[in-house]
């Protein structure tokens, strides 16, 4: 009886250990001619712009700044080459799966408040429906709500006001059945203005809560 119990316990233990100790992570060691070869392709940003990337190794560096342009590093020491522009079809052949898995860009809403108040302006009141649409659209599980004020009034008062503003927005979201545990609340008082002003200046655009939906 005792033996059986011991046996059962040790099996349980083995299982437990199995769950703790996973197989070692392997990265490539098999020598293959092309192993490690890197191709980098620049494409349009979600908002249509094209930026710039620099690809470098011990052989030098190459800039690419046109959509469809590719830079290639054969290994860590050979010079980097650039190629003629790639067609969209060719890009999709190689990168289609990765592109399809790319999440939507997070979106930030700026909700403005009345002076020294936690009441939203009328315009921002109507923006709330877009916030909800974005949360539903992205099936978001990660929302940040950050409160701010302008630079009239005391700093410490403004910290408290920015906190009350952020909590007000959280309350509104939760009242429309957003899970409170996915909302991260922060407040910066007057320290992080949208529009920089000297101290004591009233600036409606800084009386705000920024809601980022990821």
């Amino acid at each position, binding site marked *: 009886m005792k033996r059986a119990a011991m046996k059962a*316990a040790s099996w349980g*233990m083995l299982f437990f250990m199995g769950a703790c100790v996973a197989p070692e992570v392997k*990265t490539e060691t098999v020598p293959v001619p092309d192993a490690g070869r890197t191709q980098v392709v620049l494409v349009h940003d979600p908002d249509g712009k094209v930026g710039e990337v620099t690809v470098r190794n011990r052989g030098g560096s190459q800039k690419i700044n046109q959509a469809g342009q590719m830079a290639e590093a054969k290994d860590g020491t050979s010079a980097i080459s650039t190629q003629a522009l790639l067609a969209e079809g060719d890009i999709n052949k190689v990168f289609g799966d990765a592109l399809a898995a*790319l999440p939507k860009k*997070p979106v930030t809403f700026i909700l403005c408040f009345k002076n020294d108040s936690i009441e939203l302006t009328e315009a921002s009141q109507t923006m709330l429906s877009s916030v909800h649409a974005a949360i539903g659209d992205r099936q978001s599980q990660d929302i940040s709500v950050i409160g701010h004020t302008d630079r009239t009034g005391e700093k410490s008062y403004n910290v408290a006001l920015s906190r009350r503003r952020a909590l007000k927005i959280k309350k509104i979201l939760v009242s429309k059945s957003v899970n409170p545990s996915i909302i991260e609340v922060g407040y910066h008082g007057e320290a992080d203005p949208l529009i920089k002003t000297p101290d004591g200046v009233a600036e409606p655009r800084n009386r705000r809560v920024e809601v*980022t939906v*990821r």
Partner: protein
Amino acid sequence: MKHFFGVLCLMLCLGANAVAASNEEAAIVKNFSGTAFIVRQQMTFPVKKSERIFSGDLLRTGRDGTLGIIFKDNTILSLGPRSELLIEEFHFEPSRGKLSIVTRMFKGTAAYVSGVIARLSPKSVRFETPSATIGIRGTKFLVKVEGGGEEE
């Protein structure tokens, strides 16, 4: 003996969790398909939706797998099948000037849209591969790294 193993195992698990907890949270899983794994402190586990990702985590997809994540600074990254990428370093504390996002890709395909860190401090963004370092100025790009043959 039995106790020894039990305690050892417990320590291993607790130890791993403690280390994971001290690393900065870097990103959240937005979507995945097929087989996709996270390797954290030498433990491999399947990805779940909304799973938090920490610096030090290795992301891996199988032959039918894809994975899409969003970093705390709004950098967006996705992996195609048979890919492996390490979140080597991530700090996002603009108020303290502490910014960095370093990813290291071992194989596969990826799409990358840079976020706030690239805007505030382009030097703090690096994407490493076995043969090159990619520097980024506010942009979207694709990377393919040739693997060293099939494993799995």
